[in-house]
């Protein structure tokens, strides 16, 4: 009787089989729970409220209004204003549409109150900030090298910066005792840790305003950071994706401003990442940019952007919208005001429930301290608490451990991806939950 030999199945690469995509972590598990039981005001009022997604829905009406008033815009990008469609359809130049780059440069300047200038020829387009960050990592570091990133940081970095690039992340640990500010001591410690492991550090990546802290980096700290990277002769990536979501123009200081003030000395190591996914609430459009002060990096990034270009149709649409200064100035101002109002609403609500948060001044979320609810100050207890909040209170919030926060008990809570009504309901649930927890504590004593 013949023995069947099993044909070996065709094998895949290490990249394909890698777990670096991290989609099994709690950060993403919470999304699954939400998908299975999503809150809906009418149809599912007891469902899970999504507070783990940093999306900006507070200013859609402004966009819609603009597009309705300028319907010929959408038409030009789709319809036959003959040359317009044809040109767009054939345009796959990795320089990107000049009108679009000009509009982006001008928008970025407006966000910074005109305190920094951006040259459209230094803008490289990418399909989203995710792609921009990965691209910069490919350019600045070789496999096995490392980037330093202050904690807590956006969980997506573990996947975006490491997966295909083979580059490592060395965390720069920040602490609640000084509001999680980045200190030169912490930077040195991380750098030395890398050295001791024989790992070459090629750059430092900061997110300013910070995700998940919801706070801008102080000017004095930015200067110390710039001094550190210059001394170590490494790169600095400043992910400023939330720059338009700072609650006021004056609160946010960009690295580009610091460079402008010092006449761009030592600037060839600095690269800024931006995107329209947060400030304009257009993540589906896939619009990201790299702004580099380094000619080599611009040239290389531009060539590499072939793997991640923005649809010319979208570029055209946005070029028109973002060059309309009246629209953009109004949008930036109103968006900031609304986000500030939301922030104050959630902070008040949390305070009434007896919950403290980090002082925030930017972003679509707040950094909340629930460590008093932990039985023990451990990661395991933090995850237990997270599960409790997810399944009992039916709120999906992001545990600090997924952001590599060293201190257990901190959570990121998003507030801009829902209506005010939904936020109120979420706050009420939190209030009730805290009440119950207090009663349990009292009865245990």
């Amino acid at each position, binding site marked *: 009787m013949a023995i069947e030999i099993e*044909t070996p199945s*065709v094998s*895949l*690469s290490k*990249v*394909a*089989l890698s777990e670096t995509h991290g*989609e099994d972590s709690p950060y993403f598990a919470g999304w699954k729970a939400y998908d299975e039981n999503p809150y809906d005001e009418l149809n599912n009022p007891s469902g899970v409220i999504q507070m783990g*997604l940093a*999306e900006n*829905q507070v200013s*859609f009406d402004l*966009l*819609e209004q603009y*597009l309705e008033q300028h319907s010929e815009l959408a038409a030009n990008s*789709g*319809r*036959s204003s*003959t040359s317009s*469609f*044809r040109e*767009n*359809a054939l345009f*796959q*130049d*990795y*320089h990107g549409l000049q009108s679009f780059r000009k509009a982006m440069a001008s928008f970025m300047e407006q966000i910074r109150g005109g305190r920094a*200038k951006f*040259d459209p*020829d230094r803008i490289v387009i990418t399909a*989203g900030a*995710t792609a921009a960050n990965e691209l910069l990592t*490919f350019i*600045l570091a070789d496999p096995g090298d490392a980037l330093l990133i202050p904690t807590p940081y956006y969980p997506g970095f573990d996947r*975006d910066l490491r997966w*295909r690039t083979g580059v490592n992340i060395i965390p720069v640990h920040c602490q609640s005792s000084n509001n999680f500010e980045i200190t030169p001591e912490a930077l040195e410690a991380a750098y030395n840790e890398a050295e001791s492991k024989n790992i070459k550090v090629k750059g430092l990546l900061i997110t300013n305003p910070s995700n998940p802290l919801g706070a801008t980096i102080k000017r004095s700290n930015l200067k110390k950071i710039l001094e550190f990277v210059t001394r170590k002769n*490494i790169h600095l990536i400043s992910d400023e994706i939330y720059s338009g979501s700072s609650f006021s123009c004056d609160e946010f200081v960009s690295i580009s401003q610091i460079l402008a003030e010092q006449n*761009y*000395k030592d*600037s*060839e190591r600095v690269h800024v990442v931006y995107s329209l996914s947060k400030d304009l609430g257009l993540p*589906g*459009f*896939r619009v990201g940019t790299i702004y580099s002060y*380094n*000619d*080599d*990096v611009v*040239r*290389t990034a531009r*060539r*590499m952007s*072939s*793997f*991640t270009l*923005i*649809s010319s*149709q*979208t570029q055209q*649409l946005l070029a028109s919208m973002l060059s309309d200064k009246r629209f953009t100035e109004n949008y930036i101002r109103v968006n900031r005001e609304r986000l500030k109002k939301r922030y104050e609403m959630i902070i008040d609500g949390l305070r009434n429930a007896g919950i403290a948060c980090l002082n925030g001044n930017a972003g679509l979320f707040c950094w909340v301290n629930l460590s008093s609810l932990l039985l023990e100050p451990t990661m395991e207890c933090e995850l237990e608490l997270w599960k409790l909040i997810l399944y009992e209170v039916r709120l999906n919030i992001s545990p600090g451990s997924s952001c590599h926060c060293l201190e257990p008990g901190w959570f990121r809570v998003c507030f801009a991806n829902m209506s005010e009504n939904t936020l109120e309901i979420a706050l009420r649930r939190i209030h009730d939950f805290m009440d119950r927890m207090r009663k349990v504590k009292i009865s245990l004593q």
Partner: protein
Amino acid sequence: MTRSPVPDPKDEPRNPTRTGMRLIVPLQGVVQGRGGLILGSIIPCALFYFLQFYLKRHRSSPPNPPSPSTSTGNLSELPRSSSRANLSSRGSIGRVHVSSRASSIAKPNDSPYYIGLDRVREDPYDEMSNPDGIIELGLSENRLSLDLIEKWLEENFNNSMLGIGGDGLGIGGIATYQPMDGLMELKMAMADFMTEVMGRTVVFDPARVVLTSGATPALEILSFCLADQGNAFLVPAPYYPGFDRDMRWRTGVELIPVHCRSCDNFALSITALEQAFNQARKRGQRVRGILISNPSNPVGSLLNRDTLFDLLDFARERNIHIISDEIFAGSTYGNEEFVSMAEIVDSEDTDKDRVHIIYGMSKDFSIPGFRVGVIYSFNENVLAASRKLTRFCSVSTPTQQLLTSMLSDTSFIQEYLKTNRRRIASMYDLFVAALRGLGVVCTKSCAGLYCWVDMSRLISPYSEKGELDLWDKLLNIAKINVTPGSACHCIEPGWFRFCFTTLSENEIPIVVERIRKVVESCKPPV
């Protein structure tokens, strides 16, 4: 652009720099005992060192610069606006280093393929404003049927197609985070479109469609998923110059050309594949798959059913993958029938895991600017990994919405495909006849947006240098940009790819006259 480093003495390329080969022959004496023990051990070590050095050098040779249809712009310093006047000019290299991956990409373009595209960008032909400019025949772009799409838009477009306004979901519907690998509506419309394009002999399943921002990242994703750094794919040559970038740049994966010859009409031979595979194995290089383009670029031929079955057998026996780039499937115009790899797999029922298809909207549908590409795989694990990787290269949602509307109009699509094919066919006939009038012959092709032209009798010497001299004359004297075969890794000198779908009928005589000037000057003396 470097030539293949395959050290096959039979395939002796025109520039033999076979360090290894040059050492082996004189070594015979040593091996036969005349050199003694010391030489007998030193020389093999030296050989080994040279071989490693040789392989390393070719492995890290400058990868090809980006997309053929994108201009590479000014390679010198970026223009500085007045606001940047204070930026200290340390030159284009800062003191801080970039990665070695980046360094090789940053080098100036040396491939004639990209140089030509640059030159056209600087001095493009225009009937009215620049009649002496360079005519672009080096870009496989199809301008013949854009009017059909424009007409459709005029008659059908409304804002809801971008998701904006009254009856649509509003901008909130399309602007927010969507599945990175594409909206289901577009996947369904795309599956239907592919079914239609490929002749309705097989039905494409939307669940196997992964959408990417162009075929360029689609190829790169497959390269990342199917091979590890240092592994290789076999690629029938001549091949599309962009493969060198898409498959190799960031992945560290190698491409091994499998040379096809004019005596076979550049048909793929399984024997040649086998030889290449075995030689790779001897070198210790692990082959993970075969990359074919069907219809082929630059030759414009179709792979027949038998060859496709043979390829699948070949891949199965060695347990490797097949990537079939079918991006020109809708641009067929001859009598031969296009057969997709999907059809082959469909009839077999087993062992589909190794087959992956690339498609896109840049050629058949003429919208390269909108960045829409497809990975179509029969392997669940590849689909799962690819979907996650699309986060780096997703299609913009307004574009997805628009495309879904267009592709869902099935009668428009059928009419479009039929008319487009007819127009490519007539342009091909006109162009080829015009070239024949100059005494220049092409292979008989039946697909693609280009023809594969034999100018070998016009080059002198009969070598890559002769070919590049002719290319240079065509570019600078005749002022037409065409793609030399060496840029496509063609082993026989003198072949050129001429794209004709960027031309209008009345431009053909202009092209012919320009070429005539150069052809006359190149003809061998009687």
